[in-house]
């Protein structure tokens, strides 16, 4: 209905392969980015409604951005390459702790060899990215089984990663620089001299990361590599017979996915939490990410954002709405309600619309494009 496509024709493949080939979509995106990059910061700095307090930034936007990023990572593995993962939380943790170690300086004593490896503290940006790389490395390691085993079996392999690293970061004091409490504090967020402190600054920082990595991720999934992943997902045998090497396809999926998740982890720890414990990256986190992906849409970048938003908003609504209605619920009840809602929603979507909200959205969009016709 709102679309006016007549006269929008493509004269080059570049145009035809664009992410948003329809002009109206490009406009919408531009507006969205405008709001995100200019509108929100402005409103927030001058505390204009709805940014009266920092609640919106802290409790919603920051976690949304970071978790959306993590969801994208998870989606690449689960949604695009069809390799189930219950270990995303662990890879966030790896990202976070590696970044932490690198930012605070690494010292590995090889007493019996009489020498020690030590790396001086690195700049925050470097540590975050290297944290991601570290996660990617471990990802590849745990991805190797996926070459011999499929689906369900892989679930257990990733569970192994999850539980092992939960334990490692909890019990091996070296990771926490021997902090007695086991909880660690992020270093100052110093990017080439300008230090990120206020919520707005943190928000912008995450927004930047998310935007850039989203574009890169989108590029990957719409390039040959992305097609290799989907081929493996849809029919691995046929994929092999057209010359796709399962080893390469799957491991790249693991690497890329873990890298993004790792960076998200580092951001989560450094930018959002500030100080954290291994609990922040437990299996619950893994499942939360998996849910975001399923609800948002397997195999859809956009879906990752939708899923993240949904998962974050529901609890807040559960909190707000009854209170408004004058029947406030106990936090426990809310948690339980969340569980039930998410759980049943997952089942419902898997049965009715396996491609999640993203598919529903694109169907709606198609309807608008064909309006007033039904098809």
């Amino acid at each position: 209905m709102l679309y006016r496509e007549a006269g929008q024709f493509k004269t080059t493949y570049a145009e035809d392969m664009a992410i948003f080939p329809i002009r109206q979509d490009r406009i919408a995106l531009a507006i969205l980015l405008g709001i995100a990059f200019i509108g929100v910061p402005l409103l927030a700095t001058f505390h204009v409604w709805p940014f009266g307090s920092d609640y919106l930034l802290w409790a919603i936007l920051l976690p949304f951005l970071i978790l959306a990023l993590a969801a994208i990572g998870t989606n690449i593995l689960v949604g695009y390459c069809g390799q189930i993962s219950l270990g995303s939380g662990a890879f966030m943790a790896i990202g976070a702790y590696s970044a932490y170690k690198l930012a605070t300086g690494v010292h590995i004593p090889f007493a019996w060899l009489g020498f020690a490896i030590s790396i001086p503290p690195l700049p925050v940006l470097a540590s975050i990215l290297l944290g991601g790389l570290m996660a990617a490395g471990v990802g590849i390691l745990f991805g190797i089984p996926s070459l011999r085993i499929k689906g369900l079996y892989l679930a257990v392999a990733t569970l192994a990663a999850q539980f092992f690293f939960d334990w490692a970061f909890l019990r091996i004091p070296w990771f926490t620089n021997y902090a007695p409490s086991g909880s660690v504090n992020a270093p100052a967020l110093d990017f080439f001299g300008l230090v990120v402190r206020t919520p707005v600054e943190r928000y912008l920082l995450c927004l930047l990361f998310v935007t850039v990595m989203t574009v890169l991720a989108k590029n990957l999934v719409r390039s040959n590599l992305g097609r290799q992943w989907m081929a493996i997902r849809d029919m691995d045998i046929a994929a092999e017979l057209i010359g796709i090497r399962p080893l390469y396809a799957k491991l790249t999926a693991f690497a890329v996915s873990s890298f993004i998740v790792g960076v998200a982890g580092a951001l989560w720890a450094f930018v959002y939490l500030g100080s954290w414990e291994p609990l922040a990256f437990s299996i619950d986190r893994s499942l939360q990410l998996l849910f975001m992906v399923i609800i948002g849409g397997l195999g859809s970048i956009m879906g990752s954002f939708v899923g993240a938003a949904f998962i974050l908003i529901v609890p807040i609504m559960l909190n707000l709405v009854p209170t408004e209605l004058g029947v406030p619920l106990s936090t426990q009840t809310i948690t339980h309600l969340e569980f039930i809602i998410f759980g049943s929603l997952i089942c419902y979507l898997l049965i009715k619309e396996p491609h999640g909200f993203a598919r529903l959205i694109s169907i709606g969009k198609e309807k608008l494009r064909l309006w007033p016709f039904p098809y």
Partner: protein
Amino acid sequence: MVALGQFLEVLIGGLMSGVLYSLVALGFVLIFKASGVFNYAQGAMVLLAGLAMVRTLDLLVANGFPPWAAIVLGIGFAAVIMAATAWLIERFVIGPLVNQDGLTLFMSTIGVTFVIEGAAEMIFGSDVYPLRLFPTDAWFVLDGLFPGGILINKLDVWGALIAGILVAGLAIFFQRTKTGRALRAVADDHLAAHSVGIPINWIWFVVWLVAGLVALVAATVWGTKLGVQFSITFLALKALPVLIIGGLTSIPGAIAGGLIVGAGEKIAEVYLGPSVGGGIEYWFAYVLALAVLLVRPQGLFGERIIERI
């Protein structure tokens, strides 16, 4: 001599708790064989069964019922709850998802897990509820052989006994009874089974019910050991690696796997634990499973997987 004694003690303790893993794993095998579902919700079911039982039990006792009656009624009620759950799951989740690929089914059970956990805690509360069904004191045996003898936890013995009986029972149920055989038929080929007039939905309900009851039993034992609480779910989740190790489709495999994991993690905990800060039990089973997968993807007892195009 001391060392050996201690080792035996640990080993026996491990095997005993291992039997429980086998038990829960058996629940998995049933469901997997019958509907190809890799049931993540097993842990949640244990929690649900446990809570349902312990809360009724407490309630009744508080209202002056004699303990034995309370126990019987409590267990009975929990059984009913499990039956209801089984029916709901079959009716609203597994049924509609028939012929979907394993991954989808698996994810759906994660959904189920959340619903069950949420509902269970909402209805029955989310604290730690102590449960006393079995004696928890210990025996000392063979003190002639070893100084101080070997400590054996009576609860473990009970658990092992019950589990043993159930395992035997299930094995028979599988091999002998009509339903059991029908069940195996379904596992091999849905359509075929259907065409020969085996009511699949009924079969599925049955396996989920059995799995539920198995969960109930596990709940009684673990409940007594640790009190009924959320963390039980993680304990029960270990049935996943147990299965991988044993082989997804093999009942003996499930049993052996359970024992291996049980003994293995105890030994690892006692002998390696201290050097790495303890808590190895938390992941041992999974990493072991991972190792097995790499060497023998179909597990120790599983049949080979052949692909065709």
